[in-house]
Each structure stands twice: as C-alpha cells, then as structure tokens.
C-alpha cells in the first residue's frame, strides 16, 4: 500500500514536470523559430495554454499534499487540540463534498463542450475540459491519503521532507 502510494505520487509528479517542461520548450521554440526562420508555430500558443490548464488541475492534488494551498490558521491557533481535530474533520468533509461536486459538474461541462473545437489544433474541447474532473479526482485521492495525519496533527505531507516545502508561495 505504501509502495503503491509512493508510485502514485511519483507518477503524478512526473506528469506535472513533463507539462511545465513542455510548456517552456514550446514557447521557447516558438520565439527561437521566429528569429531564425521567420515562422511561428500556429499551435504553440494554444498548446502551451492548455498544458498550463492541465498542469494547474493535475498539480492541485500534489500541492494540497505538500501544504501548498494557503489557508488562514488564526482560528486553529486559539483552539484546544481536541477542538482543532474536530475542526479539521469538518474541513476534510467540506473539501471532499466540494471535490466530488467539482468532478460531477466538471464532467457535465466536459460533455457540453464535445463538439467545440480549438481554433489552431482543431482539438475537441473535451480534452481541454477533462482537466477539471481528472484534477479533482486526484485531489480526492490525495486528500484521502493524507487524511489521518492531517486530522490528528494538522500536517500535510509525511516523511518526504519539509512540511512547509511550498507553503504560501502562492498569494503574490
């Protein structure tokens, strides 16, 4: 089970790394081509944008695991350990309902966009919008994997290093 979890996390990470790297390579190549051959890749802009959207949702679960989504902890800080744990149970329940609902609505949205095509790559928007149900499903899995330590001690990531690895780098 632990090995399966590690594999899952590593795989998720590899996909996210591949997405950000290809974004940089595609946009970089487009600039280079404009200067060397005077031609631009018509699909570069679009491909990079949709990769970014995928990266956001596929990375959201891992970011949650690493404690990367900023939250306000003022209330936590004044509560007793017992009340903190109850509060965290409430948070987990709200999040699970929210994630599941996002998967549901995301699938609806995906289905609606079936026949719409992207302008440059002529790709069905289905494949773009699929990022959301996929991403929120991953969020559910990641949340369930860390739920024990999170409720007990308010910790996110376990054993893989610094708890505050990326905490807060988000808001500006």
């Amino acid at each position, binding site marked *: 089970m632990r090995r399966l979890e590690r594999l899952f996390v590593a795989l998720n990470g590899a996909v996210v790394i591949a997405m950000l790297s290809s974004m940089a390579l595609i946009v970089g190549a487009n600039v280079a081509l*404009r200067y060397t051959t*005077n031609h*631009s890749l*018509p699909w570069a*802009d679009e491909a990079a944008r949709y990769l970014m959207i995928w990266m956001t949702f596929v990375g959201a679960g891992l970011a949650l695991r690493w404690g990367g989504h900023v939250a306000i902890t003022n209330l936590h800080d004044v509560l007793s350990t017992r009340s903190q744990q109850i509060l965290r149970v409430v948070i987990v329940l709200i999040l699970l309902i929210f994630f599941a609902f996002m998967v549901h609505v995301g699938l609806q949205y995906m289905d*609606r966009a079936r*026949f*719409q095509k992207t*302008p*440059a790559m002529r790709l069905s928007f289905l494949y773009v919008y699929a990022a959301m149900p996929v991403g929120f499903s991953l969020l559910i899995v990641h949340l369930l994997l860390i739920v024990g330590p999170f409720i007990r001690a308010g910790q996110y990531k376990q054993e893989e290093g610094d708890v505050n690895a990326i905490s807060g780098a988000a808001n500006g």
Partner: protein
Amino acid sequence: QTEVKIAYALAPDSHYGVAAQKWQDTVEAETDGKFTFRHFPSSALGGEREVIEGLQLGTVEATIVSTGTLSNFVPDTGVTDIPFLFRSLEHARHVLDGPIGQEILAKFDDAGLVAVAWGEQGFRHITNNRNPIETPEDLAGMKLRTMENPVHLAAFNALGAAPTPMAWPEVIGALQQGTIDGQENPLSVIVSAKLNEVQKYLTLSGHVYSPAMLLISKPFWEGLSDEDKAAFMDGAVQGAAAMRGFVDDVETSGVETLKERGMEVNTLSAEQKAAFRASVESAYEEYYDIYGKDLIDRISATE
C-alpha cells in the same frame, strides 16, 4: 420585467455597442417595456468564446460576436474568413442576407444557439511599421500579428509574410516595442484601439471581410412567446443594419481620422488586389478541401 444581459467585446460607442443599443431600443418599443437590457461591454463577461458558452448555459441572454470564435462552434462560419472571397461590402451583405448566409445561421441550432442576424465589422486592412505595401513582395518576411485562425495563417504564409498568432493583450506593446512589424484588423478596430500611435503605414488591402453575428441564448429563446420572438428578431435585424451603417461611416471617416493622426495610407487598386489574390491561390486548394469548392463557387457567383 425580464432582464436581458447582452455582452460584447468593445466599448459602448463601438459598432458593437451601437448595434446592441439599437437591438434594445427596438425590442423595448415593440414589447411595451417587458424586457430591460443590461449591457456588458468591453468583455466584462469574458472573451467571445466564454460569452458564447454563457449563452449555451443560459447565464447570458444575447451577444454580438466576431466570426473568428464562431467557427469553433459551427465550422462552416469559417468560410467567410477566406481572403479575397468577397468583392465589396455589398457583395458580402448580399451573400450573408441571402440563402447562403441563412443556411449558416440555421446550423447554429445544433450548437445550442440561436443565430438571428449577420452584423459586420468591415474589411480587414494591414498596418505596419516597416514599409508601405503595394505588392505581395512588400510583405516578404514581415512579422504580422494574425488571429489564431488557420484560414488566415494559410493565406499569409502563402503571401510570404511571417504570420505570428499573438494574444490581443500583448499586441499593442509588441507593436510599440517592435517585437512584431504589423497587424491586420477592420478600420473600426484600428481606429478605436488608436493603432496609429504605434503604427506608421496603413494599407487598405481589404484582404478579408469580417462579419459579426447577433446571437440569442437558446434556453431564453425557447421561453419567449411568438410575438416576443418576432420583436427580438426584428431588433437584431435593425441592430445589424445599424452596425453596417457604422461600418460604412468608418470606412470613410476612419481613414480620414487615421491620416490626420499621421498615418501614411495607401489603397490597393483592383490590379494590385488581383496580384495578391493570385498569390494566395495555393491556399485556396486547402480551402476547397475544408469548405467544399461548391460553397466557395456559390459565394463567388453571388451578385
């Protein structure tokens, strides 16, 4: 009273705003104030593609959009993007108001949209900072911002330019700083975006006719009575007419304005245009594959 949210990409005093206002006035007059309109100009509800999705969902009731986005929903709309296909504004208006245009409008039903009328942005023209454009050779290697539109890209590639698809928010800065040499847009946009501040040459190339479309949300439409539907239909036709009137105006006054603001303007003569048309011949093969030679020939044959 029912609220009608109408969204469009440009300011209230643009051709979009004028059409939306006329649409509102007509509907209000014909339905005794049963409907109140709320305008969302300047992309306040997001880009055109997002607004169209809003129409499908029923969060927005009406919109006026360019056709660039519409070919994502109904591919046939893209046929109007073919360069040097329309000979004049009159020709274009005849085609779109005639059977060909109405057939395309009807196809929006399958996309969950009610397309009521063709509006207009006018012909697209080229501006740049490098040199005046008189022959296709003048375009050679020119870094020209185009829309992310395969039909336009094919044409400019065939002409030997270096078309560069770029998001609109980056265009003014890129023209200013010289990252790209030029761009192409209808006069209405060139004037309202004050492109003269960042561009030296304007070539009235009229390479592509740029229509617009007036659309209504299907869930909203289905809830209307027959009289209300007629009022909205009539309002859209009046709005489209107002839009065309605005464009007719800009085609003359816009050029004067841009000259006054210091742009160097030249107009392609019929022979010069023919040379450009010949240069994009290779791209036409591609267009025949996508839209069918039959449709393209029918458009050309329309008086």
